[in-house]
């Protein structure tokens, strides 16, 4: 420590305080091993459907290699407007209320930076996606975790929100279906959360990137609740729905003032999302329904299989209503989730992300992704079963 102080440290202090991603730590360990079966990916194992890739190839063929409008291709914004209206309810004006971004990742950053002043507090439910707290910290805001519990299906309760809200609370970040728990938003919870946001005058940033991967449950968005459209930044994208993670394209929908604010940052820091990806995204919205349904049906069977298998080998978990993660408990064996994951990796060459990578609320769990080939899931379960049996003898 001392020696580092003697050298000049150019890194900004608010960044220094953000811990390294637990996912990256784990990635570095896993990538040194051979023959690992990985249930620790956070992306579909499918390749983007061919007609979408072909649209990208065709765009390149025609010489689509330039910048686009800052907001994104108008044709794509129109397609997004129609899609959001059809699937979620609210109407957005493609000319003033929709911004095409470089993935939901960029959209999250824009949303937070557009509304957070230094010292503002932002609520988010935990365990949650790894980016939320850091993105708030980068904007000099204060991320405040609102715990959710496995016994409660990781639902977000009004009482839990009330316990964390203060006069400095400015915004609430939501992610349903949730990475890493697979929790979905029940209608009564959405109504309650909306009332809370209205009463406390909070902005809501809702990341619904897994919305198309909702299984038997009704698909509910907080933005469709009364009084919410004006105070919501709605985020969605193509990465999960159409297995397009590498295309890096997503979108934000919000009232004109908020869109303009996000646009200001986007315009000076990103200019626009890649044009080829935007062309591919148009094709996904235009002709991708069948692929989406096919992939969802495939995930559903894998989910059922992994859920049943984990419970059978003694790693209890609820049936996730959405996304492609199961979040079983590994508690009660005298190991932290990280120790459990590392030993599982060492002894049986199966990689699952320790729950602690998703915040302290994730301790005692591991995240197992079922966007994985069914044969790999079978083998992983057999190995995990052996491992758990060994632990309990």
């Amino acid at each position: 420590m001392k020696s580092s102080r003697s050298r000049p440290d150019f890194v900004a202090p608010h960044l220094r305080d953000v811990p390294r991603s637990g996912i990256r730590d784990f990635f570095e360990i896993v990538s040194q091993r051979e023959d690992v079966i990985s249930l620790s990916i956070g992306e579909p194992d499918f390749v983007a459907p061919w007609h979408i890739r072909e649209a990208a190839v065709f765009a390149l063929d025609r010489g689509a290699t330039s910048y686009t409008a800052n907001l994104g291709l108008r044709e794509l914004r129109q397609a997004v407007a129609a899609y959001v209206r059809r699937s979620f309810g609210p109407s957005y004006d493609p000319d003033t209320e929709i911004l095409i971004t470089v993935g939901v990742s960029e959209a999250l950053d824009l949303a937070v930076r557009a509304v957070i002043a230094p010292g503002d507090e932002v609520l988010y439910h935990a365990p949650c996606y790894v980016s939320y707290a850091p993105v708030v910290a980068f904007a000099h805001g204060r991320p405040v975790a609102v715990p959710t519990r496995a016994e409660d299906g990781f639902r977000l309760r009004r009482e839990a929100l009330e316990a964390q809200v203060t006069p400095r609370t400015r915004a609430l970040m939501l992610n349903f279906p949730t990475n890493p728990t697979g929790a979905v938003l029940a209608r009564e919870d959405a109504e309650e959360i909306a009332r809370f946001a209205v009463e406390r005058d909070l902005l809501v940033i809702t990341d619904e990137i897994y919305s198309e991967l909702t299984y038997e449950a009704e698909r509910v968005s907080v933005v469709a609740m009364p009084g919410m459209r004006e105070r919501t930044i709605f985020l969605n994208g193509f990465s999960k729905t159409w297995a397009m993670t590498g295309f890096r394209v997503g979108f934000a929908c919000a009232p004109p003032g908020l869109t303009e604010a996000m646009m200001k940052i986007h315009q000076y820091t990103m200019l626009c999302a890649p044009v080829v990806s935007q062309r591919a995204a148009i094709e996904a919205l235009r002709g991708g329904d069948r692929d989406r349904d096919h992939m969802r049906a495939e995930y559903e069977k894998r989910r059922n299989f992994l859920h049943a298998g984990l419970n059978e080998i003694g790693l209890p978990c609820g049936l996730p209503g959405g996304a492609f993660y199961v979040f079983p408990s590994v508690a009660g064996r005298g190991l932290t989730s990280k120790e459990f994951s590392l030993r599982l990796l060492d002894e049986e060459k199966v990689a699952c992300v320790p729950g602690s990578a998703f915040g302290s609320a994730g301790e005692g769990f591991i995240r197992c992704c079922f966007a994985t080939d069914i044969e790999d899931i079978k083998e992983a379960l057999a190995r995990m079963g052996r491992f758990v049996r060994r632990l309990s003898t």
Partner: protein
Amino acid sequence: MDELLRLLRKNALESPHNLARMLRLTEDEVRRRIAQYEQDGVIRAYQAVVNEDRLDLDRVRAVIEVKISPEREGGFDRVASRVARFDEVESLFLMSGTYDLLVFVRGATLKEVAWFVSEKLATLEGVLSTATHFMLKTYKDQGVLMHVEERDEKLKVSP
């Protein structure tokens, strides 16, 4: 289509135990439904999809377009069922368009297939003409790609 059938079409060797897990059914229910499908003739057979290009086999496959004259009673069915019964015939379809039957045949050699066409098929009563196309290479068969696609490596851990 029933998800059970979809799964079996993809992998007929999948165990009832695993099928039950995937479909959230009991194993008994899975067994009962499979037995019912077999009994009703919905499931006709279980076969392996073999990439014969990888085997050192003497075999030739061909597709033959056949024009036939429909009969007053029975239409195309009588001729079609006679064609179907030859062992050489793997698949047979009645088609719309410029010909009537599409026949998939196999034989050990080109000569053997040619002989089948000229001696057996063309001479059947009702067959007006044939056009034979020999297959050179199989890229995809019954929904299965016959060569392994190279895939971009994905990260082993991602958020």
